[in-house]
C-alpha cells in the first residue's frame, strides 16, 4: 500500500507542474505569436518566454525522482 502512495505522489509531483506548464504556455504562446507578427526581431525573447514555464515541469520531474528514490 505504501508503494502505491509513493508512486501516486511521484505521479502528482510531475503531472501537476506539467499541467501548469501547459496552461502557462498556452497563454504565453498566442501572446508571443502576436508579438512576433509585429516585431519579428523579438524571436529570441519569444523562445525564452515560451521556455520559462518549463522550469516547473522540470523541477516537478526532479521532485518525482527524489520521491521515488526515497521511497525505494
Amino acid at each position: 500500500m505504501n508503494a502505491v502512495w509513493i508512486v501516486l505522489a511521484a505521479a502528482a509531483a510531475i503531472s501537476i507542474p506539467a499541467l501548469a506548464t501547459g496552461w502557462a504556455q498556452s497563454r504565453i504562446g498566442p501572446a508571443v505569436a502576436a508579438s512576433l507578427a509585429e516585431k519579428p526581431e523579438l524571436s529570441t525573447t519569444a523562445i525564452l518566454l515560451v521556455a520559462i514555464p518549463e522550469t516547473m515541469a522540470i523541477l516537478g520531474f526532479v521532485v518525482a525522482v527524489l520521491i521515488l528514490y526515497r521511497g525505494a
Partner: protein
Amino acid sequence: MIIPMSRIRVLGPRQQLDGVLAALQDTGLVHLTEPKPAELLQRATLGEREARRVRQLQALLREVEGLPLEPVPSREPAPAGDRSDTSAFAGWARAAGRARRTLTRLDRSIRELELERADVARYEQFVTAFRGLLPNGRGRMQSYHLVLRGDDSQAVARLRGALAGVLGEHFALEAAALPTGEQAALLLVPVAEAAKVERLLAQSGVHELPLPAGVASGEALRAQPALAERRDALDRELAELAGERRELLATQGPELMRARAAAHDRLLELGARQQAGITPRGFVIEGWLPTAAKDRLSRALARQFGAEIVAEEVSQEEWRGEEAPVVLTNPRLFRPFETLTRMLPLPRYGSIDPTPFMAVFFPMFFGLIMGDAGYGLVLALLAGVLHARSREGTAVRAVAEILGPCAAFAIAFGIGFGEFFGDLGQRWFGLRPLVLNRERALLPFLGLAVAIGFVHVVLGLVLGVINAGRRHPRQAVGRGAALAMVLFVAVALLAGLRVLPKSFFTPAVVALLLAFPVMVIAEGIIAPIEFLSTLSSMLSYARIMALGTASVMMALVANRLAGSFGSVLVGVLFGLLFHLVNFALGIFAPAIHGLRLHYVEFFGKFYSPGGQQYHPLGHWRPGQPQPSLPAKGVP
C-alpha cells in the same frame, strides 16, 4: 571581448568637406556621430544642388533595383563604385531605363507565350480524350466538346438526364476523366436539335471547350497535328526570348551593378554630410573608430590632404562609455558563438562580452544533455555537411560551427556515460560508463547538474562584480557581498551534509550573517530578493539532469521496442524512427535550454545590454540600408 574605441575629431576648411568624407568612406573606419555643440557650429545640410543629386540618384536606384541583376553575395563588397560626375549618372540612368523597358517587353512576351503554351498543352489533352470518345457512324450529327467540373461526380449523370428530358434517346454522350481532374465530354445530337441543346447547355452552365484560333468549329478532332506544330513553334519562340533576356542581362548587368554601387556610395556620402558640423569657413567631423586603427586613419588623411586637415583624438574625459559603438572580437574558435550573443541587444561599451564564456559552457551543457556518442557522431556529420554546403559569414555556417563543438562534447560525455545510441554500445562492443550511468545514477547526475549550475552562477556573479566595479563601486560592493553569501551558503550546506568538516558550519553561518547587512546597505532592500533568486537559479540547472535522463530513457525505449517486434526488419525500422525522433528532440531541447540557462541564469548576473552597433562610413554592400535623405534642399 569588446575592442577599445577612440573618438576622433577631423577639422579642415569647409571646401574640403566632401573630399574628406569621400576619404573617410574609402578607409571604412569611422562611425560618424554628430559633433558636440559649439559656438558658430551648425549642422551641415544639403543644399539645392545636393538635393537635386539625391533625387537623381534615387531615380537611378529605382530603375536599377527593379532589374533582376545577378545577386551579389551579401558578405562580398559590391563592384567598386566611383564618384562619377553628373553626366555619368545621367548616362547610367538612361541605360537602366532602356534595359528596364526592354526587359519589361521581353517579360510580357514571355508571359503571353507561356500562357498560350499552357492553353495549347491543355487543349491537346482534351483532343486526345475526345478522340477516344468518338463513336462510329456520326451521320448528320452536331458535336459539342464539353468540360465538366472535376469536383462534381454527378455532373455527367445530371447532364444525361437533362438531355434525355429534351431529346429522348436521340443523343450520344461519352465522358472521360482528364489529368487535370476535370471531365471531358463529347455530346453528339441531331443537327435539327442543336438549338434546343445549346439552350439547355447555357442554362446548365456547362462550358463548351473554346477552339483555338485557326481551328474551325467542329474540326477539333482534326486539330491535333496543328496543335503539336504550334506547341513546337511556341517552344522555339520562348527559347529565343529567354536567350535575348540572358544576353541583355549579361551585357548590361555588370555596368548597371557598378551604377548601383556608385549611386549607393554617393548617397551614403551625402547622408554622412548631414552629420558634419560647419562654421562659416571650416568643418568638423566627429566619429568613433577602433583605437588600433587611429594611426592608419591619420596617415590616410595626411597622405591625401597634407597639413590642411587635422585629425585629433577627443580626450576620454569628454565622452561617456555608453556613447561608443561596440565591436566584438573573439578568437576564431569562439567567433561563431557571437551569433548567440547577438541574439540579445549588444553589450554596452566598457562592459563584458559574454561570448568566450558562452563558447565554453553552451557546448558543454549541450553535450551533457545529449550525452550519447552515437548521436554526437550523427550531429558531427550534420555539422560537417552544413559547413561544406554553406558560405563563410552566413547564418548556416555559424550554426554548423556551433554544432561542431556541441557534437564533440556530446561524443566525449557519451563515452563518459557509456552511451552509444542508448545501450547499443554496451550490447555491441561492451561500452561501459566511465563517469556515471545516467540510466541509474539519477541523484549523482542531479548533484552534478546543480554543481555545474553553482559554478556557472558564481562565475556570473564574479563577472557582475568586475562589471559593476568599472562604473559603480558601491554596486560592486553589494554584488561582492551577494557573491560571498552564495559561497558561505554553499560551505554551510556542504558542512551540514558532512561533505566538508562540520567545524566549517558555524563560521560560514556567522560570515553569512555579517555579509547580509553589507549587501542590503550597498544594494538596497531589493538585494535579499535577488539573492534568493540567485539560489533558485542554481536549481534551474537541474534541467540538465532532467532532459539528459529523458534523452537516455527515450534511446533505451527505442532499442527495447525495436527488439520486441517479431520481424527484424520492422524492428530495425521502428528503432531507427524512434532514434530519429529522439535525435531531433536531442538537438532542439539542449539548444533551447542551454540558451535559456545562459540568457536568464548567467547573463542576468552581469550582462549590461544597450551597446550600439559599430557602423563605419564605408562603401555600400548589398543589403545595406540607406539613410533617409531629404529630397528637398535646405537653403
